[in-house]
């Protein structure tokens, strides 16, 4: 099985209420150097297939279900593809 | 085999390893004597969990026996998942309250959420559909960042579970006092409805019948939760704490629907939630109660993690699991029923004649103990009780008024006290109207839902003024019960039964145990007089931080029946021109009052007296007046006294105010917390009839069309005058303000 990490983030144009709250909290705790905070999610997938297959299938999964493109962007990292 | 790395029986004894599991030397010796040999590691775990305070009530049993548990409506008293009371029309209300204090102190969101999940399961395991949630919570006074965090997260957690599963939260209370700093109390109550023929019990009976496990897989979470909740939380040692069990309200919703379908099946023999001490307690209790044995093959238990030992499986407190006994030969249809709801169910064992709880794992018998030994025969302790020194000191004090210089400022400050201030910040996070039956949502005296298909309603409330109980547990216990019944009465309901959650410090402290005893006496007497039998409850001991116990907090949850929904009454003023009555006179009684705590920074002295005969008479009179539709609005006088209650009646009444005159010393008249008092409004044309029914009522003023509060004292002097809006804004925003103001 190959491990894939899908990173889902809110699109730039969308206000992120959780990110704003986290930023405020960090400032209150003295982390004044913090500028913007954006909170997203990490989805860990385990799946089989060749590098090319995995890339295509994961992209499809993101478009169909894992990501709502109205508000979210995504990227993913494919781990070591398991040998045959 | 998996148990290979576990200590031997001799090591457990010699190295006193049972102590780590919360067992005392005496208890271990007793266990050895009862089984006639040394228990192995798994068996020691079974004993320690089943003999924990949480499962066995070993310290509180003698106290619990004092409670009145019977009444003409009681169908099921304490001892099952929840109590059951008849509400007519072949229907019954099922309810119970439970604590989740220790988990909430460590991880408040998960702790509070799983607390709600557990008590919901208790109710549907009786065959009832949960229809409403109530909660009662205590936190430090919000000046400390950790306490604010605990408060915010516990509220969010309890809300998340109830909202997701779709059961409305319709009543509750939150109080704040620094005795709860870092040791919050989170008590949750669920009320369910069923038809009499659907009542289920947790029984494993009928030799050869099949034991089925249904629900979530078993993981290594929450191992020894029952023991943990019976010991003090070490706040500085979070790293050493066991993994908390997380909740899955979605899974519970599916499990609930499956179980409610299951109870209609004649294949079902018994069903019980795997709550505290998980598989151990459900299996042992079901067998013990039925007088049979249970043999389970642990290899068949659905497991979430690899390589789990029998000890881990038996002690896990993974959530959303049920243990079920079905008729032999009917397994597949039950498994299919669960599968339809996307719930895994597997046969894991069989009911036996020999009364043993026998566990097999990888072909070996890993535990073999009489179920009764674990359940029924748990030790019972008669703890030492000693009156604390403070009690006689307080009793010797004279009743005096706290010194107040400015009445209006004092009233405003009281309205901003978090215990008195609007709890909107809390209940706006609850779905209060799911199921579309909510007649009175949180914010009035009690929550009310209608019973669909009838013209009846169920009213519910949770109450406990722990300051009174600390100062004088017996009187305070009476007051807790009376306050709960008052809240039901003011909503137009007749109280029918109660549940309790007894939150105390360590019972090993004689002064704490004295509080337990005395408050139980007060509660028992009041429940008898007010006709509210206790049909179930929960005990939570060792609520302490750094050896200091919280105030004794035996929370009373209570349910009442509204016989006709048109009799439902709320707090708010209804109409200008209505007469305002106060029932009962104010006396100089400030011991444990909100004003005393605010002005003096501590509580002391005698608590307000309560005469239960007067209480009963006034409640009866008022309920009769409400049922005769003579009353427009009603509320009892509690924290903050008369002036606070008067303001509260105006806060939800669009554009209405009040003008009243009250006799006597102004501080006492405005702020005293004298018991058995009510504030009601009555249409002018009903004044005469009302006065006849309620002889203790005094007419003190009128609801006005201007949104102003005017309180006059003797000789027409104005004591307090202000717009409703200025008082409301102080009251409404106080909690949000406390949460946001400090870094």
């Amino acid at each position, binding site marked *: 099985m190959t491990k894939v990490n899908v990173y889902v983030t809110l699109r730039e144009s969308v*206000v992120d209420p959780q990110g704003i709250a986290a930023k405020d909290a960090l400032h209150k705790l003295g982390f004044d150097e913090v500028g913007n905070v954006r909170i997203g999610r990490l989805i860990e997938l385990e799946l089989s297939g060749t590098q090319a297959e995995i890339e295509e299938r994961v992209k499809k999964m993101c478009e169909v279900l894992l990501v709502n493109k109205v508000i979210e962007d995504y990227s993913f990292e494919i781990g070591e593809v398991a040998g045959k | 085999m998996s148990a290979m790395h576990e200590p031997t029986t001799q090591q457990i004894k010699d190295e006193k390893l049972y102590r780590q599991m919360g067992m005392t030397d005496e208890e271990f010796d007793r266990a050895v004597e009862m089984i006639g040999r040394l228990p192995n590691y798994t068996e020691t775990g079974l004993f320690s969990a089943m003999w924990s305070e949480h499962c066995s009530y070993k310290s509180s049993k003698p106290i619990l026996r004092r409670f009145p548990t019977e009444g003409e409506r009681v169908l099921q008293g304490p001892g099952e998942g929840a109590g059951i009371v008849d509400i007519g029309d072949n229907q019954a209300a099922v309810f119970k309250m439970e604590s989740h204090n220790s988990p909430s102190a460590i991880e408040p969101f998960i702790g509070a959420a799983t607390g709600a999940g557990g008590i919901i399961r208790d109710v549907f395991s009786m065959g009832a559909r949960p229809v409403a949630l109530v909660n009662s919570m205590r936190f430090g006074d919000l000046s400390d960042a950790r306490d604010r965090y605990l408060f915010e997260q516990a509220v969010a957690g309890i809300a998340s579970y109830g909202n*997701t599963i779709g059961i409305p939260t319709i009543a509750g209370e939150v109080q704040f006092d620094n005795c709860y700093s870092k040791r919050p109390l989170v008590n949750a109550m669920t009320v369910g409805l069923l038809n009499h023929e659907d009542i289920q019990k947790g029984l494993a009976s009928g030799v050869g019948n099949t034991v089925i496990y249904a629900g979530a897989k078993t993981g290594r979470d929450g191992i020894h939760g029952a023991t943990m909740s019976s010991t003090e939380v070490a706040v500085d040692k979070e790293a050493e704490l066991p993994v908390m069990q997380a909740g*899955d309200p*979605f899974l519970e919703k599916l499990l609930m629907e499956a179980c409610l379908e299951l109870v209609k099946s004649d294949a079902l023999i018994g069903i019980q939630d795997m709550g505290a001490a998980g598989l151990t307690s459900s299996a042992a209790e079901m067998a013990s109660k039925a007088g049979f044995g249970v043999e389970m093959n642990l290899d068949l238990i659905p497991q979430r993690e690899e390589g789990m030992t029998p000890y881990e499986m038996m002690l896990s407190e993974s959530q959303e699991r049920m243990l079920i006994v079905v008729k032999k030969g009917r397994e597949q249809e039950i498994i299919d029923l669960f599968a339809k709801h996307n719930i895994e169910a597997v046969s894991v064992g069989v009911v036996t004649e020999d009364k043993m709880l026998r566990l097999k794992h990888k072909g070996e018998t890993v535990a073999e103990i009489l179920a009764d030994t674990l359940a029924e025969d748990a030790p019972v302790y008669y703890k030492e009780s000693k009156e604390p020194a403070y009690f006689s000191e307080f009793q010797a004090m004279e009743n005096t008024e706290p010194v107040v210089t400015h009445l209006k400022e004092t009233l405003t400050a009281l309205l901003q006290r978090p215990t008195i201030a609007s709890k909107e910040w809390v209940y706006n*996070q*609850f*779905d209060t109207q799911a199921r*579309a039956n909510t007649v009175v949502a949180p914010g009035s005296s009690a929550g009310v839902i209608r019973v669909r298909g009838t013209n009846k309603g169920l009213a519910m409330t949770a109450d406990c003024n722990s300051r009174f109980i600390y100062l004088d547990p017996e009187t305070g216990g009476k007051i807790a019960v009376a306050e709960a019944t008052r809240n039901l009465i003011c909503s137009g309901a007749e109280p029918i039964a109660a549940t309790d959650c007894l939150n105390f410090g360590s019972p090993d402290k004689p002064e704490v145990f004295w509080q337990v005893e005395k408050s139980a006496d007060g509660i028992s007497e009041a429940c008898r007089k007010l006709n509210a039998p206790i049909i179930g409850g929960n005990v939570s001991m060792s609520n302490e931080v750094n050896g200091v116990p919280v105030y004794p907090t035996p929370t009373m949850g209570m349910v009442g029946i509204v016989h006709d929904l048109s009799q439902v009454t709320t707090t708010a003023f209804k109409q200008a021109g209505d007469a305002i009555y106060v029932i009962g006179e104010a006396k100089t009684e400030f011991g444990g009052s909100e004003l005393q705590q605010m002005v003096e920074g501590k509580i002391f002295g005698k608590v307000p007296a309560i005469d239960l005969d007067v209480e009963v008479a006034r409640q009866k009179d008022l309920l009769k007046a409400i049922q005769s539709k003579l009353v427009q609005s009603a509320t009892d006088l509690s924290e903050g006294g008369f002036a606070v209650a008067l303001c509260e009646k105006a806060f939800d009444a669009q554009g209405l105010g009040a003008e009243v005159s009250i006799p006597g010393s102004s501080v006492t008249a405005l702020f005293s917390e004298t018991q058995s008092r009510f504030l009601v409004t009555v249409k002018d044309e009903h004044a005469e009839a009302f006065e006849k029914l309620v002889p203790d009522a005094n007419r003190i003023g009128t609801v006005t069309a201007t949104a102003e509060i005017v309180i006059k004292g003797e000789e027409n002097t104005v004591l307090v005058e202000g717009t409703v809006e200025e008082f409301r804004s102080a009251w409404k925003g106080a909690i949000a303000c406390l949460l946001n103001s400090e870094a």
Partner: protein
Amino acid sequence: MRFAILSFPGSSCDEDMVHAVLNIVGEGAEVVNHNQADLKSFDAVILPTGASFGDYLRPGALAQSSPAINSLKEFVKTGKPVLGVGNGFQILVEAGILPGAFLINKDLKFRSGNSTLNVENASTRFTAVYEEGQQITLPFAHHYGNYYVDKETAKQLKADGRIVFTYADDSHDGSVDGIAGVLNVQGNVLGMMPLPERAVEAIIGGTDGLPLFQSIIKNWSENNVSHA
């Protein structure tokens, strides 16, 4: 008229909707399970609120894996009315049947209560019994009630009269332009966060939701008479 109340696992308020339609409004209503969703024989479909699939991933998202979503898309094409309330609205948006998306409430908390709404368009088949500009009060309960569409879409929705309800008070939770309910292009699908089925009886929070159901029925009767 026969309403299908489309129930997904976790759609806990399906029975509330059945009660409102069947017992109060007095029309046929039955719960249709998401697995066996044959919707053809129904005159209208309602997606109730609750927490379908536990609101996991994103509220409404996982319902797309149900067979019912395809039948629902077919049903939408027939032009018959579809109403999604609360979580039902979120499902319609996630399925791409209605525009936009939902974010967590601006203050991050679950919120419930009553909201005052403006009826922005009273000429739809869902609102004809209301008056244009009328203010109504409906309960709401959600954690992800913060409706998002980009500025262009919002403008277009407005121009097309597809914004049916807006919040008249501060209970918008951050929703763009205070949008509380939107229509699809064809005008036969309405999604709204406030919950009309909780306001059909005086005893449980008012009757301001009733005209919504009455509007659907009125429109249906008119069409069915004209076809007869």
